[in-house]
């Protein structure tokens, strides 16, 4: 598949005992959005950092356009990194408060001087501000002079500066109010069309992920438990965890109250330092049998799951 721009193979990241990411295979095609959902501690943010090279994997590879990022060094690594950029969650802490917006957005040009000639950088920064819907005249302002939504636009402009093909968005709208969220999501979608970007979109808000994603991967304790097209995951989930997750999301329609078939899970997510044997979800799963403790279910297409699912008893269950 020549249009695959990003692919991970057996990606693993352990922090001492903690198995944050424990064998993840994903791929991303050009112009596509892959949503990654999961609850806190499932490893989705560590995955984001591995993809952009902010963390070194314990094992496995991150292939960007056929090059293994984890093996590149020096200038080759620097050039390869241009192609994959990141938008962070918190627009308050991810922008340096002592730098002007112009310096923040222009900093990538300092590190990669051959992208834009020195004399044209000011103009490039102002164009970027315009692209993300901010006033180009505000180039000398500081982050605190902007609202949360505007700051997130600054973060997006910075990610666009090196004209990457891939942007990893780690919870890009979760710190924002609903009305502002919608503005930023629309912006991300417009930029994707204008620049042919591919997104990895990491979030815990399932309705936002559904809106923006072409395909979705569901993570639990460092592993992907189910993966497929958005319709497959949301309308025909086959993994019990996906089913529970979807059913737990409150629906903004009071007519459904009491008519929803809600699966309330018992207990908390186990520690990733000491995950259960076999299937990691079995300790909270209502379908668990002996085999689940003994044999780890592989993420694959199964008899009753038309898309990959890591459950011995995978079976479609409609949630809404």
């Amino acid at each position, binding site marked *: 598949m020549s249009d695959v721009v990003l692919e991970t193979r057996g990606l693993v990241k352990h922090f001492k005992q903690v198995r944050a990411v424990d064998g993840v295979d994903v791929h991303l095609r050009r112009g596509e959005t892959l949503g990654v959902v999961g609850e806190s501690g499932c490893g989705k943010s560590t995955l984001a950092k591995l993809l952009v090279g902010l963390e070194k994997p314990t094992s496995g590879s991150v292939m960007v356009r056929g090059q293994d990022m984890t093996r590149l060094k020096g200038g080759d690594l620097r050039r390869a990194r241009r192609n994959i950029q990141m938008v962070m969650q918190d627009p308050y802490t991810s922008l340096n408060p002592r730098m002007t917006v112009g310096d923040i957005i222009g900093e990538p040009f300092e590190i990669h001087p051959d992208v834009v000639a020195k004399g044209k950088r000011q103009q490039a920064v102002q164009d970027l501000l315009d692209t993300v819907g901010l006033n180009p005249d505000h180039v000398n302002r500081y982050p605190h002079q902007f609202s949360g939504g505007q700051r997130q636009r600054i973060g997006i402009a910075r990610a666009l500066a090196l004209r990457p093909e891939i942007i990893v968005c780690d919870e890009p709208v979760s710190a924002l109010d609903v009305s*502002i969220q*919608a503005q930023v999501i*629309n912006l991300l979608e417009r930029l994707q069309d204008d620049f042919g970007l591919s997104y990895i979109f990491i979030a815990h808000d399932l309705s936002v992920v559904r809106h923006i994603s072409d395909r979705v991967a569901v993570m639990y304790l460092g592993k992907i438990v189910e993966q497929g097209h958005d319709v497959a995951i949301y309308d025909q989930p086959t993994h019990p965890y996906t089913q529970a997750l979807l059913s737990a999301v409150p629906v*903004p329609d009071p007519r459904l109250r009491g008519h929803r078939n809600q699966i309330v*899970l018992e207990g*908390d997510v186990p520690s990733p330092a000491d995950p259960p044997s076999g299937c990691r979800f079995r300790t909270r799963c209502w379908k668990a049998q002996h085999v689940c403790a003994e044999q780890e279910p592989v993420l694959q297409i199964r008899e009753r799951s038309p898309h990959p699912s890591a459950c011995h008893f995978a079976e479609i269950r409609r949630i809404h």
Partner: protein
Amino acid sequence: MTDIKAQIDVLPGTDPRAPLLQVNDLHVEFRTRDGVAKAVNGASFWLNPGETLAILGESGCGKSVTASAIMGILETPPGRITKGEIRYRGVDLLKLRGAERRRVRANKIAMIFQDALSALNPVYTVGFQLAELFRVHRGMSRADAKNRAVDLLDQVRIPAARSRVDDYPHQFSGGMRQRVMIAMALALDPEVLIADEPTTALDVTVQAQIMGLLAELQRQRNMGLILITHDMGVVADVADRISVMYAGRVIEEAPVHDVYARPGHPYTRALLESIPRLDLKGQQLNVIRGLPPALTDIPQGCAFNPRCRYAKDPCRQDPPPPAYAIAPRRTARCHFFREVLGE
């Protein structure tokens, strides 16, 4: 124990027919470097026993400040209640003497917060913090108080409560900590429970557990619940009535079904339309243009007018729109509510 409860029940001005809690025309200001921030500008709502009222709004709309004012935990200064009433069974708490007011609040009104980790004291065990309530307010012995603490942890379904009572807050998971907070709030059998974004910091599967627990405890105790949230999904799931706040005012007040079916204020309508919906996939989301106003500089007339697609001249002039009775048990502060309702 009965003594204290009895004393409160005969406070002068107690009206058995009054709502359990009633907030009238509440105004709260903060002095800041940039001038006076008008956080709450005439908020009014009421709550009956057994009922769930959702106060819905985005950051800075005044919902948490209103809750702090009711609880009496507003930082003063810089905060100041400049006007209004907070009536518990008809008695205006703002007019009571300090000791009396504290006694009503301690025994009748309780609150749980978004961030349980910072709301609990990290250097005491949860058992000590729970038992302290019984020792201070009920004069119980240490041993009795501790037993009550274990009972409470049991009631909020913390597994192995007897052994966990001696653990410190950091030893609990986020969901379990929120249960401890709920136990603490319920310790003195309050009649009003204010929950300020109780599940915002939690994962959805844990959120479902906590909301289920709150609903069950509310039913058992016939408590009035004020749920402060920005999550329209949670509201649709649990609330009986909604008060939507914007720039410190309740701009719409209605039974929950009515609001979702036919919002009566342009802001409520725009909020509901900006949620990503299944049938709108691949399309642009509806956005509310612009930003909420700075509280130091609230626009004249309707505070929402600069962002509103219905706004006309009267909306830009003081006084702000009154609370029009747009249907039985429904109000909306919009001159053009008929257009918004689609009549």
